[in-house]
């Protein structure tokens, strides 16, 4: 199973980005193969609107079945749900720490967005 982590870096030691829609990239970690790949999410950095929706689309196309990020808004959450991606929130400082927490089962799956949309 693949997990997507939001990050501004390119390795497990990199910071976990607390933003979902405007995270610069996803680190996709394959739990079985213990391999990682990076997926660019830069197209959203300057998007006037719809960044969360587009970011969720990118996560879905990456093949990830779970997402670990700091926060997620309502529109992005709807897309992630439709794509069958489970959402976990984490406030760890690095991707590696968030991955450990996932493996130890201490991350709790969220059933809702945890922040409001920018216009709501």
């Amino acid at each position, binding site marked *: 199973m693949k997990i997507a982590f939001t990050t501004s870096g390119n390795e497990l030691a990199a910071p976990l980005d607390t933003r979902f829609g405007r995270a610069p990239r996803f680190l996709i970690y394959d739990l079985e193969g213990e391999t990682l790949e990076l997926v660019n999410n830069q197209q959203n950095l300057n998007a006037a609107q719809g960044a969360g929706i587009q970011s969720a689309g990118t996560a*879905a196309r990456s093949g990830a079945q779970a997402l670990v990020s700091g926060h997620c808004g309502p529109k992005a959450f709807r*897309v992630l749900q439709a794509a069958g991606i489970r959402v976990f929130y984490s406030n760890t400082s690095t991707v590696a720490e968030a991955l450990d927490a996932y493996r130890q089962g201490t991350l709790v799956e969220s059933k809702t967005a945890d922040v409001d949309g920018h216009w709501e």
Partner: protein
Amino acid sequence: MILAVASGKGGTGKTTVSVNLARMLGANVQLLDCDVEEPNAHLFLRAEPNAQTVVTIPVPQVDEGLCDGCGACAEFCEYHAIVCFGPTPLIFAEMCHGCGGCAMVCPHKAITETDKRIGMVETVQAQDITLIQGRLDIGVAMAPPLIRAVKARLQDGIPAILDAPPGTSCPVIATLRSSDFVVLVTEPTPFGLHDLKLAVEMVRELGIPFGVVVNRYGVGDNRVHAFCSEQQIPVLLEIPDDRRIAEACSRGELIVDALPEYRGLFQSLIDKTMHRQKVGIA
């Protein structure tokens, strides 16, 4: 003649210029408040709306029986108002600009359109001035379709003054398109100059003749004038930094009524813009 009053920076005096021009014209005039997120021209006219119309935009709805989840609609939508990762697309109506493209590209005719309310167009009659204003509903972030609905009320043959929203983004472009002349109102401050430059770039891109009005003349410095002279942009009017003007505005009074000595200033702006054929400003 359609005259649009715009600015880069907000709060430079677009509405002040618009309403005083309209009153000074002294004949039938249409005043369009295109700042639909916060229309305020009505504050100076002291009349109640006598007509209100609801404005809607068409947003998609999907017939799940016909949809096979091909995603053509989502691929087409520039605004991410439709995404498709499951059996049927998800629709975010608040992101939709109402272009109708998704329904056109759907190979299974699974998308139809339904009306979503975005705001109102109101008409106010105040003597010679017919004020047409848009009022965007709270929570809606989609000004251009409402601005187009306001402009659709324009009647040919009657001069029109368009009070634009501030800035240089889509709502401003929607306002300025098809106008004959643009007045850019600024103030002689670094912030005013910075945003004036953006507004000048915008109007040049649109290819509409324009000139500058400097409001609160006397504060700040002379860099706005230096910029205009270097760029060969006509400075059409300087409105002095006069406390009495601010006081009149704060009471909702027109400058040309409260301070008649300024009538000549606004008359000269009309001569240089709305009657500009006669004075030869290109």
